[in-house]
Structure formats: C-alpha cells, structure tokens
C-alpha cells in the first residue's frame, strides 16, 4: 500500500512551499518532500559556527512578490528595509545609491543616474507583469496563449514607439556599454556592473546583462531588505502557511525517483524506498536534476533530453561567511553604514577582469564582492557584540579546472579575504571562524545542479517562452502529470515565489493556460 495524494511536491525550496500551499488552499491533499532536514532550499538561516547563524544561500530579500505575500497572508518582519548600496573606495570616498539617488559622484552622474534608474524601472515593471503569469506558449493556437502573447507585445508597445525601440535595443545588450555611455564614476559603473552579473556566469561585457539587471529590478524595483532572523524566516513563514493550509511536510526525505508508468508520472520513491502515489508530481528541483536524475532519460524524448542536458547552469558565485569578534574598520564608513549593502568593485573592468579567468575554468585572483553584516541589524544571528559577515564572492566557476580541492578552496578564500582587507585592513584579526561555499558546495547542500542561483542561466535564450527549454514552458513537462515549480522555470530565480505561484495556477487550471 502506498499513500495517495492529489499532489506531491518534490523539494521544499521557497517555490515548492509556495506551490504546495496554493494547491492545498485550493483543496488538494498535498505531500511535500524535502531532502534536507530544514525547509527553504537556498533560502534558509542556519548556524555556521558556534553561536553564529547566517542566511546560507540568498541573503538579501528584494523579489518576494506581493501577490505571494497576500495570497498566503505572510507577515515577514524586516530587520532592515530599503537598504542603500555602498560601493567602497580604497580612499574612503564611497559611492552610495538607493532608488534613483546616488551620492559621491559628480552632478552629471547624479542626473544621469536618476534618468537611468527611471528608465530601467519602467522596463523592469514591464518585465514584472510577465513575472506573475505563466509564459504564453510559442507556436500556439490557443486563444489564451495568444492573448498573453499579445498582451506582452501590447505592454511593450504601451511604452511608445521611441521607448519601445530603446527597450528592444537594450534588452539584448551588455551593461558595460550602456554604463560607459552614461557615467563617468568608475565605482558607480563597477557597482552597477556587479548588480547586473551577481549570480550569473556572465561578465558586464556579456550580452544579456541589461536583461539580468532588469530582472533584478523587476521583483520590487530593486528595493533591498533583510528579514529578521535571516532568509530562513521567509521560508519558515511559508512553511507555516503551508501547514496551515494542510500540506504534509516531510523533511529528511530525499526523493530518489519519480515513478513513471505508461508515459505518465504516478508517484515518487524516496531514497529509503518509501513510495507515495499521485497523478500530479511537482518538482522544485532544477530541471536537469528532475529530468535526468529523478525521471531518467529513458522516460522522455531524445531532443527534449538533449535540450535539458544543455541548459547552461554552471554556477559562478561563491558564498563566504565570517564569524567576527567585532566589526572591522573601513575608512570613510560610519558605524550605521554596516547595516547597508557593501560592494567591492573598483570599476566595471574590475568586474570583467574578475570574470575572465572563469571563462577558462579558473577562479578570480581578485574577486568582486557583495557584502552584508546582517548581525548589525539583527542580534539573533551572533553572540552579543560579535558579528556575522555574509558575502557573495565572484567568480568561482563550478567546473574549476582541477576541481575544488582543499588547496583550491583555501586559495579562493584567501583571495576573497584579501579583497576585503583592501578596504577593511583588520578583517583578518577579527575572524573567529569562516565558511566558504563554492558552487560545488551549494550543489551539495541545496541539491542545485551546477550550484546556479537561477537553476539555469538567465539569458534570453532561456527566458520566458523558452524557460527552462523550448517545448516545456508553462511548468508542464512533456510527461503527463509532471510539473516544475522552481527557479529553473519562468521567471527564474531569486526569492520571489513567482515560479511556485505560477506553477500552482497552471496545475489548478488543469494544464490550461491561465
């Protein structure tokens, strides 16, 4: 006898939680199986040293969709909201930006930034409307699909002819060219470049980086927040909502395979051999893992397997966590500035140069860094008077030449600390403990193939109608009863809940376009 459910969700990442909750709220019996002992996927808070905790994956909240918050009645307390970004300068003349304001640069750049930000948010808003609905199917004859295609086209057209031309010009472009046309200040260009490429295998000169920049703004116009208790509290709130809606959540339950019978998914089997059956299986695991590992190539078509196997998803961002016995000193920063978001990127070329070695499977000797001190606003994360630094350090290619050996890891850790020490000379003395997560560690801990933020590079060829791959947009896999709901699907990664919510809507509509 196996237990039967209306739906089984594999993986309790935040998207899996959102999807499961919405299905349960619609009256379905839902089982949610998570491999890890904790729910949340890459959105968790966990200890990394005695007495110190950190958001082990995502550390800044800027994309959570209001629709998700509303429908699930989430009440997430923020330790800090509307954070500024400070691009550090070695001589203490830092550049700060927040919304459409920037300081520490010449007036020309101030004006230019306001205009840049306005235009970018206008385009990002456009993208946002696409965020919260399943992408229309290309080559479709379905009325609703055509309607949403038309609507997307219409939204673009509403910009007006000139703006539309500008939008279409920019969307495939690289951020570097746009920034060098507009701005003089190297730090500003460095910071914005880094914004565009965080979490990707792209440099500021790579095509598409305007798109990734827009994507970042698309969530909530780029407004940054730190939840109390770290990212884990977002997932905890979601888990609470899920349980409230009647979802059965079982952790420490890695799913070994999705059972396929006669061309349709009929259940799952866990590593321990337990079986659960359902005619609706939703996977929060990345598309490649779902198809190649859980389903098996045997059960899907050749070209489809080929496309899934070719999804570009080599992670390139490492995470560095430091347990500090006090805040470091950084020239030109006030104490309260430690509550903001700090970037280390001398200029746009620094970001590109950091990316260069990654193209050839080497890590950056002089990496670029996004740094936060979450304990500054949230005392729950470290013992009194002590602090936590959480940083994203790029680039650390997943498929490092020679592999991520202890030596390679130590080398990269040193490079990261050296980079920070250029601004915070006493950082090393302050370190009590440290943890480095390379994309390989991220893969291991969160079960994300390639350790990629978005479960697949966020580029035009893997976006909207062709995300994760052509022929499988709309969350539906070409196997009856199998759906995806994670970051690998439209719109992509980031803690937004959009993919999970869209997937639930598609499932509830019985596979019809919504």
């Amino acid at each position, binding site marked *: 006898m196996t237990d039967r459910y209306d739906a089984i969700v594999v993986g309790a990442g935040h998207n899996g939680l959102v999807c499961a909750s919405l299905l349960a709220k619609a009256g379905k019996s839902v089982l949610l199986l998570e491999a890890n002992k904790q729910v949340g996927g890459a959105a968790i808070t966990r200890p990394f040293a005695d007495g110190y905790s950190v958001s082990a994956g995502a550390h800044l909240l800027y994309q959570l969709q209001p629709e998700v918050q509303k429908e699930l009645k989430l009440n997430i307390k923020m330790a800090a909201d509307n954070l500024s970004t400070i691009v550090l300068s070695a001589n203490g003349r830092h550049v700060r930006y927040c919304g459409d304001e920037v300081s520490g640069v010449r007036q020309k750049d101030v004006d230019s930034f306001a205009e840049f930000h306005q235009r970018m948010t206008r385009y990002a808003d456009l993208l946002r409307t696409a965020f919260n609905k399943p992408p229309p199917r290309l080559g479709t004859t379905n009325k609703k699909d055509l309607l949403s295609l038309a609507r997307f086209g219409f939204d673009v057209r509403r910009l007006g002819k000139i703006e539309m031309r500008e939008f279409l010009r920019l969307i495939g472009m690289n951020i570097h060219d746009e920034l060098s046309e507009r701005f003089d200040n190297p730090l500003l260009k460095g910071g914005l470049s880094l914004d565009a490429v965080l979490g990707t295998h792209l440099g500021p000169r790579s095509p598409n980086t305007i798109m990734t920049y827009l994507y970042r703004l698309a969530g909530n116009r780029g407004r940054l927040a730190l939840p109390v208790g770290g990212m884990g509290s977002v997932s905890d709130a979601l888990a609470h909502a899920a349980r409230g809606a009647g979802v059965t959540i079982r952790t420490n339950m890695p799913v070994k395979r999705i059972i*396929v*019978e*006669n*061309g349709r998914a009929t259940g799952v089997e866990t590593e321990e051999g337990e079986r659960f059956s359902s005619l609706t299986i939703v996977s929060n695991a990345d598309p490649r893992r779902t198809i*190649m590992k859980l389903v*098996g*190539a*045997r*059960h*899907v*078509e*050749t*070209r*489809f*397997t*080929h496309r899934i*196997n070719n999804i570009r998803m080599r992670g390139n961002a490492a995470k560095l966590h430091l347990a500090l016995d006090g805040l470091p000193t950084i020239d030109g920063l006030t104490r309260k500035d430690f509550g903001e978001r700090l970037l280390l990127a001398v200029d746009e070329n620094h970001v590109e140069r950091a990316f260069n070695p990654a193209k050839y499977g080497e890590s950056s000797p002089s990496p670029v860094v996004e740094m936060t001190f979450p304990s500054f606003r949230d005392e729950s994360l470290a013992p009194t008077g002590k602090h936590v630094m959480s940083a994203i350090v790029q680039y650390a290619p997943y498929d490092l030449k020679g592999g991520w050996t202890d030596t390679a890891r130590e080398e990269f850790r040193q490079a990261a600390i050296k980079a920070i020490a250029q601004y915070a000379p006493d950082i090393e003395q302050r370190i009590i403990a440290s943890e480095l997560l390379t994309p390989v560690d991220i893969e291991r801990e969160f079960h994300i193939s390639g350790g990629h933020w978005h479960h697949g590079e966020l580029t035009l060829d893997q976006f909207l109608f062709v995300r994760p791959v052509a022929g499988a947009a709309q969350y539906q896999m*070409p196997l009856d009863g199998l759906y995806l709901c994670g970051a690998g699907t439209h719109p992509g990664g980031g803690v937004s809940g959009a993919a999970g919510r869209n997937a639930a809507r598609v499932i509830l509509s019985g596979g019809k376009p919504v």
Partner: protein
Amino acid sequence: MSIQEVPQGRLRSPFYSRLQALDTLNTWHEWKGYSSADALYCAETEYFAIRNATGVFDLTPMTKYRISGPDALDYLDRLVTRDMQKIKPGRVAYAVWCDDQGQVIDDGTIFHLREGEYRLCSQERHFAWLTAAAIGFDVSVVVETAEVAALAVQGPTSFTVLSSMGLEGLATLKPFGLRHFEFAGTELMVSRTGYTGDLGYEVWIAAEKAELLWDALFAAGQLHGIRAIGTHALDLARIEAGYLAAFEDFLPADTTVRTGRSRSPFELGLDWLVDFKKPNFNGRKALAEEKRNGSTWRLVKLDIEGNKPAHHAYIYAKEKRNKKEIGFITSAAWSPVCKQNVALGTVRMPHGKTGDTVWVEIFYQREMHWTRVMAKAVVVDKPFWFPPRRSLTPPDPY
C-alpha cells in the same frame, strides 16, 4: 613509368578487389561514401541468382554501430518502437526509430550479439541522433562500419553453400537468429536475415579477413550457382519482398524540411513494430495521439494490371473523373518471379484498405512518344514474394 591512379575520394569495401575482378560493366554509385556496384555483369542474371541459386551482395557500406554498456538494453528500448526486452542474445530485430514527433528516422536491424552487446545496422548514418539519444544512459555507441565487412548471401542454395563452407549447425538457425562461428582464426557471425524475402543469410567478419571469407564462400558455392550481385538486382528482390527503402518509400524524418513529408510507423504499415505496452520509446506520445486521431497516409502494396512498371505514378481512386490523386507510387517493378506488375505506394487515408481497387496512371515512352494508361490495381497485404523456404528450418538442401 606507370600511371598512378588518382583517388576519387570514395571508400572501397574490403571486398573491392574481388568485386572488381568480376566486374564487366563498371557502373558504380556512391553509398554513404563507399563505391557500390549497380550491377557487375547483368542485373537480370544477378537477380535470378537470388531467386534460383545464391546471390552475394557486398553489405559493408551498411552503417554499423556497436552498442554496449550497462544501459544498452534500456537505451535501445527507448530508441526504437518495439520491445527490445524480447530480443534475446542470438536474435535479430527489425526495428524503426522515430524523432520526438513520432516520425520515422530510419529502419534497420538490431543484432543482439551477446548478452548486453548489440549491433545496429541501417542504410543511412545516424551517429548524431544515436549520440543525442545516449544522453543520460551509461552506454557506448561506436561506429564500426569500416571494421566489419559484411555480405548478404541470399537465395535457395545459400544454406547449402554456407554449410559446405564448413559452418556446422547452421541448419538449426531460425529466421532472425544469429550465430558465431570460427573462421580463419577469427569470429564469423552469421545471421539468418536479408533484404530479399528469400532463404538467405548475412555474414559478418573483421575487415582484414574479408577476402579470405569471399574466397572460401565462392569456392564452396561454385557448384551451387553462386554469383556476386549489385544493387539493381537486390532492389528488385526487396520490392518483391515488400521491404521499404529509405529515400524511396519514405524520407528519414531528419532530412525533411516541409511538414507532412515525413512518415510515422503507422503510415508505413509498421504498426506491428510499435509496442505501446513497453514503458517508453521515443515518439510514443505523438504516436499514441496519432493512433487516437488517425494517420494521414497509408503505405500500400499494389498488384497492378499490365506489365508496364508504374514508376513514379499518381494513384487515383477512380478510373474516370480522376480530378484528385490520392497518392503516388514510390517503388515499382515488373516481378519476374511472381509474373506480376508490383509496386509500393503511399495513399491518403482512408484509401488503400486491403482489397481496395485503385487506379494508377502510368506513363511510358515508345520511340520518344509518350503513352498513358490508367491501370487497375488491387491493394494486397502480403508480400508479393513469400516462399515457404524463407522460414523453413532446417532449410532444404538444394
């Protein structure tokens, strides 16, 4: 001083020296990079060797892939539409494989050489497809076209010829069976397979031993009417047997550009090869849908009145008022052995049910002038040529 021959860029089969020695016509065509003879002395005589004695055809250019590894069976089962679990070691399966849309890429034979080790043979090359299909499987796909020399040994005396070559135990080999023999210090594989619809075998050996095999075969066959044959003779035999040829009776799906120009297995009369009971195969979903909704085309075997081969003819439902054709002929021949005007063709569903009468518009030329006849044709379901000796085990000695 001697004149050096300039290489023409075509590959030569390891049997080339022997074929060339017998060749009096010098008409060769290209087959997947190899030189292959149209005929060696006279296509008709060669054809009669197949039906009355033994015809030997050089199969080496046939594309051969060695498929092995822990997932070989699962891989093949997903690749082709039929159930490969049923094909035990020592057995051969005729099979088709389809793209994701359920359209036939090619047909071929799969030899289960030994437990978990297979050879797939097809007229066309498919390495790219086979490689793509291997993603996610622990399987190795190796091209062995050049390494393995092969001959088709076909006709009523073929069993006697091979037996007198000293291959013991051949008598019990059933159709679609294969067996390994020791020959010239190497392994000779013999399968009871072929493309002629007659009693016949295919023999497979390492390319270095090809000439030795040829010589032994022809020595053994001398008294049994053995003859080397070319493609024309074989093509006539395969039409009589009702076998399909890629690029004649269907286009490999990966070579078509226009929609509707490729065919599903159902549209090629290969329903019996499609097994919906097995877990999955490429194109299953699309084929299940086609099964529900009906196919567009049907392949027909036609018995046509008169003696003018209906090459490339249009097929009509009625003799008169034939405004709209319902299909066309893809392979046609006057069959000497059946004394019948036969053809394979494609018609639109629902036309072409067994027993239906259709009309074939045949054009032929006499002293430059064209003549047109509307020939009556009946749709038949059995191969035109299907002698009992084809499957008799043990075969009768001749």
